[in-house]
């Protein structure tokens, strides 16, 4: 069974102290799993998490299947999010996504075969004045020109 390192376990103890019940710490603990596992929650972790916070395996699975960010497949080294909500979607976000899929040769929700870049289509990420918006790892790129998407991808590949 997988587990946290002792350094991370110290963080876990700190987190437990912030909540009146251990089970309330489930999401923060899942965020630690994401951080330590390339942005995903491998299934082997479900029981570990259930035991740590004292809930059933079903409870943990129910939570993991509910939230969009909680995925089973590892992300690429770099993660690109393309917003296609309103207003981004109506300011060219849909075209940006199309070009991005072409440039990477994958669909949204997939990772390039070399494990370098994963692509996600997202709903509004609260920076709509910069539409159309993409997020590369934790950085925003604003007013993305669909015609320049290939350049962006090429630059990322070089890094």
């Amino acid at each position, binding site marked *: 069974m997988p587990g946290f390192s002792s350094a991370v376990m110290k963080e876990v103890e700190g987190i437990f102290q912030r909540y009146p*019940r251990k089970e*309330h710490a489930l*999401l923060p603990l899942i965020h630690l799993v994401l951080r330590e596992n390339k942005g995903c929650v491998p299934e082997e972790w479900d029981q570990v998490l259930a035991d740590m916070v004292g809930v059933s395996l079903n409870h943990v699975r*129910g939570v993991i299947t509910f939230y969009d960010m909680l995925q089973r497949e590892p992300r690429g080294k770099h993660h690109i999010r393309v917003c296609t909500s*309103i207003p981004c*979607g*109506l300011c060219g976000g849909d075209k940006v996504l199309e070009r991005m899929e072409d440039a990477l040769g994958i669909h949204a929700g997939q990772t390039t075969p070399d494990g370098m870049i994963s692509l996600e289509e997202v*709903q*509004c990420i609260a920076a*709509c004045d910069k539409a159309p918006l993409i997020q590369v790892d934790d950085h925003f790129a604003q007013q993305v020109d669909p015609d320049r998407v290939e350049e962006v991808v090429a630059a990322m590949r070089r890094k």
Partner: protein
Amino acid sequence: MLKETLLLAKNIRTDGYDGSLEAYRRAGGYTALEKVMKSMTPDQVIEVVKASGLRGRGGAGFPTGMKWGFIPKDRKPTYMVCNADEAEPGTFKDHFLINNDPHLFLEGMILGSYAIGCNHGYIYIRGRSVRPAQRINEAIEYLYKAGLLGKNILGSGFSLDLTVHRGAGAYICGEETALLESLEGKRGQPRVKPPFPATHGYNACPTSVNNVETLACVPFIVKEGAEAFKKIGTPNNYGTRLVGISGHAAKPGIYEVAMGVSMKQIINDLGGGVRGGKKLKAVIPGGSSSNVLRPEEIDIPFDFDSVAKAGSMLGTAALMLFDEDTDIVELAYRTILFYNHESCGQCTPCREGTFWLRNLVRDFRENLGDSQKLERIGRVSQQMFGTSLCALNDAAAGPIKAFVTKYPEEFKKHFI
């Protein structure tokens, strides 16, 4: 020419301001807290907020002082929860505050916590906002060091801890009872009400859930008094709004205006009108949950009551402009796609209704529309109203119905 009224964005608009604790204090920050810790009882804080007429900025516009007054005084613990989920498409005002001046809403949150007797507050922020969450955590760390959080704040005997809790990608967790479920480590599905959070909220204890922008108004009210706040805005709609202009605007961004100024002026004077000299086709005034307005309907005061009277909603004051080239069917499709995806699924009318509406609008998008389908969109949305546990259902049905009623010609272009 309409100008901004700076109440919340005053610091942010000051050159060189970096939002640090030091800068915030230099600008007079935390003097409201000092005043309260020295000389005001919790009830007095509630009274001044009540007297100011402050209404919630999270969407529904509920009076904040009244909400705090509902918290029973004989039950402990109580909780203050700040709603920083901000996932309504078109909305980015709370992140504007979090990123640029986090101490403003944090001071409001400390004051609110004191008012309702809370010793541990939670800030619920959407999962994908990694940096904004870090920003708040850093600010909190400084507050502990400065003795403005933790035990015995400023020697007053009042103690408060604050914890940032990150969501994991679910719009519905912005709904306050779903948020509380999520905070308790569960699936974020709204609760049956009553009981309301004021009596049974977080961990079944009395809880007040307040929006970031709402809390950011509190330091001013406490410091300058209710009357100073009421000088801004219109009766029953006091204070300012952080208006987030986006879409096909020439100058998208956040602008702070007194409530009740002309919406048309906000769009033209601050937002710069439609970019590229194009004509305006549609305006969504308060986030994706509010009904679309046609260009001839936008000459109204921008406040809760006037926008409601015009058949829409001030909501999150997220003004989206769409130019003459916009396909309203595409706009409707993006909207319903969102709600269908975000419906938590526990109420049949919402789960099935958003699904059917999505399929119907998609038919138009693929040029497979006809008059029967157009009528069916109206009927399905009509049947959804008021039948579900939370407001997401109506927030999906309303805008779709408004699109087909106000722009039938756009849908007719997509007939088979």
